[in-house]
């Protein structure tokens, strides 16, 4: 369970690092499919509850496939669409960060921003 300070800090990191960098939607969630924090740029709508359930299922399925081929995990999970794309990252053993972004942003920038964010989130989670 996360305390109020941690949730505030996580919200802030997501807002500053990801939304202000131009990403459309960001969901921080647990592996069971529960949303912990969600942010968007206010421009487009997303059914984030259903999305989180599907994302958890998708991540879990790919993770199980990795184990079957002897990989501890596949580090990059990325779905590219014509207008928008989705990027999945594991934050720690229990949580995931999902970002959605449009074609104006490069995957390289997203990966960089996501990596920074994950580091910060893990620091936040490490201090009670």
């Amino acid at each position, binding site marked *: *369970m*996360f*305390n*109020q300070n941690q*949730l*505030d800090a996580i*919200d802030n990191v997501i807002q500053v690092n990801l939304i202000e960098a131009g990403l459309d939607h960001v969901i921080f969630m*647990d*592996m*069971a*499919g*529960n*949303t*912990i924090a969600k942010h968007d740029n206010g421009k487009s709508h997303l*059914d984030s*509850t*259903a999305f989180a*359930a*599907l994302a*958890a*299922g998708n991540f*879990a*399925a790919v993770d*199980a496939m990795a184990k079957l081929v002897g990989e501890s995990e596949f580090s990059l999970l990325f779905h590219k669409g014509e207008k928008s794309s989705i990027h999945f990252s594991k934050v720690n053993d229990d949580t995931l960060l999902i970002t959605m972004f449009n074609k104006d942003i490069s995957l390289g920038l997203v990966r960089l921003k996501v990596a920074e964010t994950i580091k910060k989130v893990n620091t936040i989670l490490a201090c009670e």
Partner: protein
Amino acid sequence: MALINVKTREVQIKIVYYGPGRGGKTTNLEYINKKYRNQIKTEMVSLKTQDDRTLFFDFLPFDVGQIKGFDITIQLYTVPGQVKYNATRKLVLRGVDGIVFVADVQKEQRKKNIESLNQLYENLETYKLDLFKMPLVMQYNKIDLKLTNIPVLSSQTMQKDLNSLLRVPAFEASALKGGNVILTLKKIISTTLASIQDQVF
């Protein structure tokens, strides 16, 4: 484990409908979705094969109001019941807070019910969860078949097969007609909420 967010004051609870293939798990959720349509904000999500068998899960979230200032959201899931899908069944159980075991009262399904329940016990063990401590409700489904020529098992037999050790609440039901679907749902919600309240509030 239920997700409790102290900032947004939300609690998200995961309830899984588990049981043998074709037992009526998806039909339970479809009935609930129809019955409570105007209280449910999102569409039901079903990942299924072309012949309507669950491939990964069905998903249906809905709000049940507030407890001690927290908004409670219930997320209903079904597992795929077919034997070959145990790997995905296990994935759906991750983070489960309460379980409805949907058994099929048809005589020819007797063994499948028992095998499915045994496997549920094992699958929970992989998450270090104990079926005997899990909020659980039994549903003996397709009771409407009593009125046809199809042989069905008596409630005593179902109880003896599945519930003699667990001793949890059990209901005869007809997911197809809606009989006791809501009663089953209310029971698992109240049992699960009671167990979560013991843990956190």
